């Protein structure tokens, strides 16, 4: 292993890791928003919304995220959407993971015992109040862990913006493999940084999960 080389190039990787972190955070926020909207649509009383929600999940989960990134970045300008690679990558990945999060959120809501709804409705609570005060607080707790799984996948998924030249960890590793011919060292350097990011995110999610379970 070429330690000298690693010491020389690691500042570039640290910088790239920072980009990966920004990508991850923004994608998570956008994904959660899309997921919440998607779940609401999927469970709507109106068939049109249910249909739109189902189509969103099916299309975005049924095609490669890489293609989605390409369509937005390369194809966007054709329909008047001109985005730089970072913005295009973030939006495409966020909307993509949102489709997965839709199912996670919906799954958690559906898993709340039906008796809870019946009890609330029997007390005279409206559909919305039942959801807001009884179902969601219970579902929230149950969705933290599976959302954590989505986020774990999403962090690794940010590598998909490397092909559109966002200078994040995988792109940086690829570039240095090309110039140094040391694939193993570059893999380890980028890989360890990914694992640190995933570890920290995992700890954060575990903390949230523990806190949610106290009450």
């Amino acid at each position: 292993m070429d330690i000298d080389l690693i010491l020389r190039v690691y500042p570039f990787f640290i910088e790239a890791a920072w980009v990966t972190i920004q990508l991850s955070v923004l994608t998570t926020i956008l994904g959660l928003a899309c997921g919440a909207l998607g779940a609401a649509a999927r469970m709507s009383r109106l068939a049109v919304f249910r249909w739109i929600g189902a189509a969103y999940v099916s299309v975005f989960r049924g095609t490669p995220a890489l293609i989605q990134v390409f369509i937005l970045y390369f194809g966007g300008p054709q329909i008047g959407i001109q985005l730089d690679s970072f913005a295009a990558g973030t939006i495409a990945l966020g909307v993509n993971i949102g489709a997965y999060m839709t199912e996670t959120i919906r799954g958690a809501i559906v898993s709340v015992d039906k008796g809870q709804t019946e009890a609330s409705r029997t007390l005279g609570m409206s559909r919305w109040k039942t959801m807001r005060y009884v179902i969601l607080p219970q579902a929230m707790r149950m969705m933290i862990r599976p959302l954590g799984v989505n986020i774990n996948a999403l962090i690794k998924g940010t590598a998909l913006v490397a092909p559109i030249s966002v200078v994040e960890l995988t792109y940086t590793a690829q570039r240095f493999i090309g110039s140094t011919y040391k694939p193993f060292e570059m893999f380890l350097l980028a890989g360890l940084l990914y694992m640190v990011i995933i570890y920290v995110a995992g700890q954060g999610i575990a903390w949230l999960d523990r806190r949610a379970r106290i009450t």
Partner: protein
Amino acid sequence: MGLDFTVVPSYFGVLLMGAGWTIAITVAAGLLSFFGGIFFAVVALYGHWAIRLPFRLFAWLFMGTPLLLQLFLIYFGLIQIGIDLPAFVAGVIGLGLHFAVYNSELIQASILAVDKGQYEGARTLGLSRLQTLRYIVVPQAVRAVVPPMGNNMIALLKDSALVSVIGVMELTLAAQQAISRTYRPFEFYLAAAACYYVINLALEAGLRRLERRFQASR
């Protein structure tokens, strides 16, 4: 520059061939990930510690890093140590190993969940440990994880698009070739997405049938 889908039909042949390669890669890597997953699971649970330890490290690295990064490692790493594999083979190995690690995690947990009575039933008949594993425990463990392994297969199909980045000819690269001639990325990536979607539907239907077939034998 607006949209013009009329250019797409003249590249049907290219896209179709790409789709064929995508299916070939998915099947080849899928088989590798299935048998590799079983092999890794058995090694991880019953192997000598000198094998288990490097395997744990390998699994840990593969589960904690992006597939694309792994593909770069395998493709360029193999060249580095003097093995110049065709891109297709490198892509299949990369995808296959990546998902083998995920399948292995599923199968390991599933093996540990096989009822103690099954070991007793088999051992009482006189089956050796290896025979018990081969004929009783592993088949049951694998059947129990058909649904989640199916999900991995679906993920594999979509992730096969990544091997275009190391130059493997498949659907995504086929679309890129058409784009380089027509400068119509939106149309051709959308067409490629539609192909993926159809293949995905077929795969999902196939997996559902498989699940149903194994229903009684669980």
